[in-house]
């Protein structure tokens, strides 16, 4: 494989992954609101060109009916297809939770392995665009807590391409969360990016003083903070978790043991958030081996606010990461 790279953004990478997957496997389907070219190829254009190339039967726009979307995806998956279903925004998964949780995630188990539900749910979310309380929530913790569905939140375009290729061929349901900025920021991406296995974290920067773990668009914030920490003489090892469930315990534990400190940062609410599971596991496995408690940063306990000023205060920002990393680094 060539190691040539091009600049592309997440949107282009997902589009390329869907194109390749549909080309290679006639069982791959795409459905969702406005996703066909007749409707403009998706509200932000992720699915542009697919229906023109693969036809209206494999790439179907739907009514506004998330239960119907997920139901159609589940049935088609059980019949041998590999549907990629879009739930436009993560807050709208709330109207499809029965289909996702009681059915997609459970039918393999409840049928004793007779039913396979190899589908992918694509959904977009994230604060930062003043869309307020019903359009920007991160609910990955709900799905991580639900047995039978995998949860993926990529950061880079290369990961989007590689993780989508894997998720589509995965025999089980996978929800992939596209977080705002990750769709639009161009990055160097291998031209021939192939599948990247689910469940593997990526150590994006080595470090010695503290491990900082994050995923999705929050990685941009973390990278900014890490640069400033380096200037302050603190060497952070940065982990992009990529798959939140099942998560890569091995990589995370090895890094936390090495640096002796772990800080988990996510955009989801801190209370009962994904970071709690990571902290709980790490404190147990590395009991007595850490120099500081596992730190967590996440959204405060409130809805996403509208006003830009409040939205900025709501989101974890570099100074908060820096302060917390320094506090932990000073311990032990």
């Amino acid at each position, binding site marked *: 494989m060539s190691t040539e790279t091009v600049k592309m953004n997440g949107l282009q990478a997902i589009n390329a992954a869907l194109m390749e997957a549909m080309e290679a496997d006639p069982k791959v*389907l795409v459905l969702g609101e406005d996703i066909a070219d007749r409707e403009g190829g998706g509200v932000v254009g992720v699915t542009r060109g697919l229906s023109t190339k693969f036809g209206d*039967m*494999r790439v*179907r726009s*739907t*009514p506004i*009916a*998330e*239960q*119907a979307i*997920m*139901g*159609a*995806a*589940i*049935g*088609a*998956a*059980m*019949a*041998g*297809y590999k*549907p990629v279903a879009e739930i436009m925004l993560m807050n709208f998964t709330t*109207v499809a939770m*029965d*289909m996702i949780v*009681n*059915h997609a995630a459970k*039918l*393999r*188990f*409840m*049928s*004793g*392995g*007779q*039913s*396979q539900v190899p589908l992918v749910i694509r959904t977009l979310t994230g604060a930062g665009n003043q869309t307020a309380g019903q359009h920007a929530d991160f609910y990955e913790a709900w799905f991580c807590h639900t*047995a*039978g569905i*995998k949860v993926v939140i990529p950061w880079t375009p290369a990961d989007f391409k590689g993780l989508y290729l894997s998720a589509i061929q995965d*025999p*089980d349901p996978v929800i992939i969360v596209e977080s705002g900025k990750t769709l639009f920021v161009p990055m160097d991406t291998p031209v021939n990016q192939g599948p990247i296995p689910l469940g593997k974290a990526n150590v994006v920067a080595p470090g010695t003083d503290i491990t900082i773990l994050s995923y999705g668009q929050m990685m941009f914030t973390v990278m900014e903070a890490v640069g400033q920490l380096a200037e302050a003489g603190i060497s952070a090892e940065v982990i992009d978790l990529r798959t939140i469930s099942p998560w890569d315990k091995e990589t995370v534990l090895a890094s936390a043991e090495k640096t002796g400190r772990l800080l988990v940062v996510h955009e989801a609410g801190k209370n009962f958030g994904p970071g709690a599971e990571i902290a709980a596991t790490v404190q147990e496995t590395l009991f007595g081996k850490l120099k500081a408690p596992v730190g967590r940063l996440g959204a405060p306990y409130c809805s996403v606010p509208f006003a830009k000023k409040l939205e900025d205060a709501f989101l974890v920002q570099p100074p908060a990461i820096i302060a917390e990393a320094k506090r932990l680094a000073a311990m032990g």
Partner: protein
Amino acid sequence: MTDTLTNRAVPDAATQLDIYRRMIRIERNDDATRTQIRRGRITAPYYSARGQECIPSAISVLLNDDDKICTIYRGIHDMVAKDMPLRPLWAEICGRVDGTCKGKGGPMHLTHPETGVMVTTGIVGSSMPIANGFAWAALLDGTKQVTVAYFGDGASNIGAFHEALNLASVWKLPVIFVCQNNGFAEHTRYENGTSVDQISKRAIGYGMPGYTVDGNDPLDVYAHAHAAIERARSGEGPTLLECKTFRFMGHVFGDADGYMTKEEKAEAMADDPLPKFRQKLIDSGVATADQIDEMTAKAEAEVNDAIEFAMSCEYPSDDELRRDVFAEEIPA
């Protein structure tokens, strides 16, 4: 205002007998289930369909093995009508590893893809959106397969019903939506939960045909199912069939029935589809009483064999909790 069928298909003698065979197989199976529960040999909640035998029987004679059904907790009659073998069925409701779902699903959640029993859901309304997915797959496969979605009258008031019927109509899917209207949703009388006198009228809102059928009359169910299945197989899209019937055993086995009058119940039970159809078959010379008794004995023997089989099967091992969550076993 509801539609009227002009061209009524009539089942020939063999088909009529086949309908009765299915009905008596359901009835004997149901009777045996209740007996086993009474004796404490089965401990699960059981939703008897005694009284509703005619509906899936008159439909299933029109279906092939590869035609699919999605049904509900009160659905064992639908499976037996579809000629699901009784041994794996009984092993399942007895929680044994030789059950069709290895004992993980139980009586509310049987699956048997070989006979087209694809999904049995415990969530009111959820059979319908998933049925659409199988129908979409059939269109993609280019087969003439149809999918039947069974549900109750109460289920016609939940959102999933609406989303599924609308999508099926817009996509012209080969689905038959069969409402088994037994006049009650748990303890709630039809008119106290449903705002229209005939559920079939809701079909108008989805631009599809809707029929109200005597669900205790095999010929009426057959004629309408025939039209609906023809329509689906020829690519014209879905149909809503409302089959009026009654459940003789209340909502769940052991239910007090305090929410209906004795007279009402007695009247409904006087319309028991089984003796009525038996008499009709004899009167019209389709079968002799002896032939029917033989059929009944055969059904009973099959049920008894299945019970014996089930009771002799092993319980699943605890390792099953780590299997079928994903395709790959969860490590211990």
